[in-house]
């Protein structure tokens, strides 16, 4: 397959994938704190990659990515001790995918600012529906004692990060990806030259929901505690968008760089000057958007990121 060939030829990507896989040694080498940091990094990489798969490629900026993550977490939490985890975590992904498929047809009819705000509103709507369901069955929060160890969860999350990265890479190199960027540029023209716009948008949207669904499940297990407002927190969506844009979403390396950079920043600052860490993050973000609008990837690999724009 040419796509696979592409991956094997892409040395930078291979290095990334290897380093993702190498994180399995973090717990043994650096202890459990760094294992959690690694777990978080993998989580953000997975989420940001999957966001890029749809929003990065089509230009439909979704501010509601958290809804898939939340629904996955909900599936795992509500079937905890009922279904084995190897069933419930993938099930979380499937349910997220189905949710995406169901809402895709109406939602993808609107564009631009309307889409941005619609996705946000939809995520909030689902949040309140789940909240109501939970209260009506008398389960306002759930404890998940007896979840797997951090190490196990880290391994699963590394797997998800690798899959998410590969998925985004494969899509971006394929005819499918070419169609998606045509949609980003001008949807009507894309349609006119034969790009099956509706089918492509729905497929990409659905694909981009599956990984977050599983990530949400794993994170719920990590917290050993599930509360609706916590897993549907819109800040998660904002963070994903931030990472994607800081990293540069023209290429699979962007999301990785974005996630790693923000996490690094937070590790550097929250431990040393916690009081003003958030203010610093804010200032950093501004500097970035103003002076490096195409993200870190564009600074590190200027030529490649431009032709992938």
């Amino acid at each position, binding site marked *: 397959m040419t796509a696979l060939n592409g991956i094997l030829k892409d040395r930078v990507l291979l290095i990334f994938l290897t380093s993702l896989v190498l994180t399995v040694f973090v717990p043994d080498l650096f202890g459990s704190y760094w294992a959690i940091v690694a777990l978080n990094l993998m989580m953000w990489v997975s989420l940001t990659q999957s966001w890029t798969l749809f929003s990065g490629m089509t230009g439909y*900026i979704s501010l509601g990515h958290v809804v898939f993550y939340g629904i996955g977490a909900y599936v795992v939490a509500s079937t905890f001790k009922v279904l084995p985890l190897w069933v419930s975590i993938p099930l979380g992904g499937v349910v997220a995918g189905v949710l995406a498929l169901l809402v895709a047809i109406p939602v993808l009819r*609107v564009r631009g600012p309307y889409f941005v705000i619609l996705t946000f509103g*939809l995520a909030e709507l689902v949040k*309140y529906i789940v909240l109501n369901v939970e*209260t009506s069955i008398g389960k306002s929060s759930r404890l998940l004692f007896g979840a797997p160890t951090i190490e196990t969860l880290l391994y699963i999350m590394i797997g998800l990060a690798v899959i998410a990265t590969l998925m985004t890479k494969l899509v971006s190199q394929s005819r499918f990806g070419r169609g998606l960027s045509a949609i980003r540029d001008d949807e009507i023209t894309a349609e006119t030259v034969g790009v099956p716009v509706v089918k492509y948008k729905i497929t990409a949207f659905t694909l981009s929901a599956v990984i977050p669904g599983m990530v949400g499940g794993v994170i719920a297990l990590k917290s050993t505690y599930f509360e609706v407002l916590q897993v549907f927190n819109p800040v998660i969506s*904002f963070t994903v968008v931030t990472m994607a844009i800081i990293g540069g979403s023209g290429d699979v390396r962007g999301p990785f760089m974005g996630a790693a950079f923000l996490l690094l920043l937070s590790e550097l600052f929250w431990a040393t000057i916690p009081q003003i860490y*958030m203010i610093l993050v804010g*200032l950093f973000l501004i500097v*970035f*958007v103003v002076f490096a609008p195409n993200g870190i990837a564009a600074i590190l690999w200027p030529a490649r990121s431009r032709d992938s724009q």
Partner: protein
Amino acid sequence: MDLLLSPQLLFSALVLGSTYALVALGLNLVYGTMRLLNIAHGDLIMVGAYAAFWFFTLSGLSPIIGLPLIALICAGLGLILYFAIFRHQLENVHPVERIEANSLLLFFAVSVIVQNVVALSFSGSPRAYRHLDEVYHLLGVSMTANRIAALVVAVTLLSAVVLFLNRSHYGLSISALIQNKTAAKIVGINVSKIQILSFTIGFAIAGVAGALISMTEQISPFMGFPFTIVAFVVIILGGLGNIKGGIAAGLLLGFVEIYVVVLTSANFRSILIYGLFVGVLLLRPQGLFGKTRAS
């Protein structure tokens, strides 16, 4: 249910609705004219609320009297942000979608910074003060003076803005500017003047809304986000950049919120509001009061 006919509900719906309209108006001016996704809008409201709180606590200055001052502070903040960050974006970044995505991040940053600066300076503890809280009974409605004041100020301000937009070419220029900046320049619209005006007026109105809200709610550095959401819901319902539509939608939302609780259950309040919002976006993306474009 005769509950529905209660003038008390009507009064509350009016107060809530006009507050929403005011909260959204400022956002509409900034987002509507420049496509800047100002998710820090709620934080400006918070700044207005804190300004009112401190004026009142330190000098006993009534927030109502202090309104011009508070408006000035927030307008100043708007000017600083415009010249420090956003002018550059508006002039040098293409296309519009790009500005929009960037502004989302920039305002996210502004929001984080403003919240934390306020939290650092005044601590995260919630605060409140008592002002104009005597209850009046009029036509079978009991109302606290501060809510009457909020209603009066909001309605006055909303009408003033509508009048201003109707009378001047500002309103038309705004609509033109949103759609096509080059064409706006061609017909002789002073683009930067409109942008500066939108920034200052938009921010000032947010500050005023915050001051009004501070009289009836407790305030904290992190109170802003729900207002940001409300503002977005309202301006989408009204049609982006459609100032009058936004005002109507704000009022509508206030009524929906109050009467939904009575008709169904308070529990469904958020579901219904977001449901309405999502539904309108799907069925009439140009907003309830926008004009259709058959494409």
